[in-house]
């Protein structure tokens, strides 16, 4: 290569570099947050640190995210980065719509796949690739009203740790004459119902692909007993976790199964000593499981600026230790949270996170989830026995899997 040509090339490169420095890179970010929440706060901080990158944040309703993304992909208007709920990652990854981050993570000084808890990591993993980074996590535990425990002669320092103990405690705490139910949970026919039931199934050795098990029958029959015996409200069938826990906060249920998102409201509404313990297991030596909620930050394969997009994802991961105190999620990776809010309850959720398992992954997760919801609902309404309902669910799930 002659000298002159080389010089020309160098000048060309230099001018190209200055041009791109002056020109801002724009990233589109879709989120389910409202202004003032996680993605908006983080995007502002990131832009302050990187003035050459501009992030346009847009709020999409949680229920509309999948439809809007699919439309965006079809019409070429997809964002660079988006939030996706855990079980939907497989749907988009299976279509090749998400950027495989494996190589980026390998090269990164900030992100270590080993630091991410197994549940959240599995939620972003699809057929060997890593298609996103969890923005945080949540899981469920058993909240209980310690004052009601004392009134009922139960020991609030010794909450139920097995299903049998949970049943006995709930039964003892139920006071129909005072309109108090022993337990609030959600068996609604939406993803929330699956979210609440799956850990019960997983603790007995089953999972989404193997629902027709003895353990699942036992769990469903116990749920049915809760409703039939008036331990939990029949409205459990149509109420989500937020509304169910609302009855706990109002003193109309003595225990509630739900997640950390309840805490801000609970601490302002509940005028009693509320505590939390891990979700009871079928027996003292049974394997543990818990639900895995929250979502992931993913980069779309169509992004023009994947490097800058990954820089933002790195930035989010580096701030994982802040999510509990500032945004109410549990950290999805092994970080030290200094001076956590609600320290005792945080400790319970932090421990539960170790057992939190992903839903799926499967690209047709909603259909699998629907089969599970169907089994829950037809058992609890008495339309079918738990055995028949689960056998039917299994055959529906098999049709999806095969």
């Amino acid at each position, binding site marked *: 290569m002659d000298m002159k040509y080389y010089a020309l090339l160098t000048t060309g490169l230099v001018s190209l570099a200055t041009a791109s420095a002056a020109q801002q890179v724009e990233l589109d970010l879709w989120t389910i947050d409202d202004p003032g929440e996680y993605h908006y706060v983080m995007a502002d901080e990131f832009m302050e640190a990187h003035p050459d990158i501009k992030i346009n944040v847009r709020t999409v309703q949680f229920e509309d995210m*999948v*439809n809007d993304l*699919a*439309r965006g*992909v*079809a*019409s070429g208007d997809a964002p660079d980065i988006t939030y996706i709920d855990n079980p939907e990652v497989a749907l988009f990854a299976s*279509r090749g*719509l998400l950027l495989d981050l494996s190589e980026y993570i390998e090269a990164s000084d900030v992100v270590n796949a080993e630091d991410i808890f197994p549940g959240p990591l599995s939620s972003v993993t699809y057929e060997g690739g890593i298609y996103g980074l969890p923005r945080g996590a949540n899981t469920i535990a058993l909240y209980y009203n310690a004052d009601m425990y004392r009134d009922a002669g139960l020991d609030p320092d010794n909450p139920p740790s097995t299903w049998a103990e949970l049943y006995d405690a709930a039964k003892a705490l139920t006071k129909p004459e005072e*309109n108090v139910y022993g337990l609030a949970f959600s068996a*609604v*026919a*939406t993803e929330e119902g699956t979210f609440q039931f799956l850990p019960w199934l997983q603790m007995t050795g089953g999972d989404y692909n193997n629902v027709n098990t003895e353990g699942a029958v036992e769990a469903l029959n116990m749920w049915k007993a809760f409703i039939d015996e008036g331990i939990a*409200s*029949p*409205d*459990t*069938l*149509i*109420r989500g976790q937020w509304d169910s826990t609302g*009855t706990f906060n109002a003193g*109309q249920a003595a225990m509630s199964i739900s997640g950390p998102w309840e805490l801000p409201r609970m601490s302002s509404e509940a005028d009693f000593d509320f505590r939390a313990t891990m979700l009871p297991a079928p027996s003292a030596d049974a394997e543990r499981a818990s639900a895995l909620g929250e979502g992931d930050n993913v980069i779309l394969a169509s992004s023009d600026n994947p490097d800058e997009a990954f820089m933002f994802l790195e930035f989010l991961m580096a701030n994982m230790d802040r999510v509990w105190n500032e945004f109410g999620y549990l950290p999805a990776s092994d970080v030290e949270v200094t001076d956590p809010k609600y320290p005792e309850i945080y400790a319970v959720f932090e421990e539960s996170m170790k057992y939190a398992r992903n839903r799926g992954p499967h690209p*047709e997760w*909603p*259909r699998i989830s*629907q089969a599970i919801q*169907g089994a829950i*609902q*037809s058992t*609890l*309404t008495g*339309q079918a026995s738990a055995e028949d309902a689960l056998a*039917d669910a299994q055959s529906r799930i098999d049709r999806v899997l095969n």
Partner: protein
Amino acid sequence: MLVFKNTFRDGVGFDAILVTLALGYLVLFSAFPLVYNLVMSFQEVDLFSLASFDRPFVGLDNYEDVLTRTEASSIFFNTVKFVGISVVAQLVVGFALAMFFQLDFPLNTWLRGLFLAGWIMPALVVGAVWSWIFAGDFGVLNYMLQALGITDAKIFWLSNPDVALYSVIIANIWLGVPFNMILLSVGLAGIPEDVYEAAQLDGASRIQRFFTITLPMMRAQLGAVISLGVIFTLQQFDLFAALTQGGPANSSNVFQYWSWQLSFQYYEIGVGSVISVLMILFVVFVAAIYVRSTRHEQVM
């Protein structure tokens, strides 16, 4: 040129433009979606192939799939119950109210106007209000029934599978009565007073007058109200979304909500389209009956 101008102003050309505009609108906003929906019902469609025409044709597979599902027959009968009971009750109550407000008493037109309040409210808001009324543990209705000593135990209006569908029907009747009442009031006002006077002179009783004058003279309005009622009731979606989401265990699910669930919750869009095609066929059938029954009448 002049010829063109003239035809445009008051000749064939102007007519053609009017027809084209109307037809163009219909093709774009009615025929295209209908045909698109029909095509999708024969194809395998998911979220990502929604915008492209190039999708695998599966023949009648979608139809077979959806009609053989265990929940299909119960959802069908729920739909029949929902439409049948809603339309009949809306008609009876609406007719009775319309006749009531024909009576001459102070503020009658005023009060009739207030009845429309329910109709102009968004159905989702109505649904939210009814969900407080129907709430099992702390609902207004249960409180009233127990306070009045009508029931001892709480009725779980929305979560008892034997009751949930009827709760949605009650809310829907409430929602549809004002519309029925207003349309029928207009019809009643159009019946000349002297016909009644003549009948009264001939000694016809109130009941005879109702069956021999009011009902026959209202034929066109009744036909319109019934067919519109069927169509509106088949479109009722918001109440299901707000009250029961079709549950528990599909006990209050109906075709229109199921179709949406299949398409947009489980992303089985081809199968969801099958339901809407079947519903369209039924609505066309209803519309045909309506047109037949009123074609020799002077339509409103």
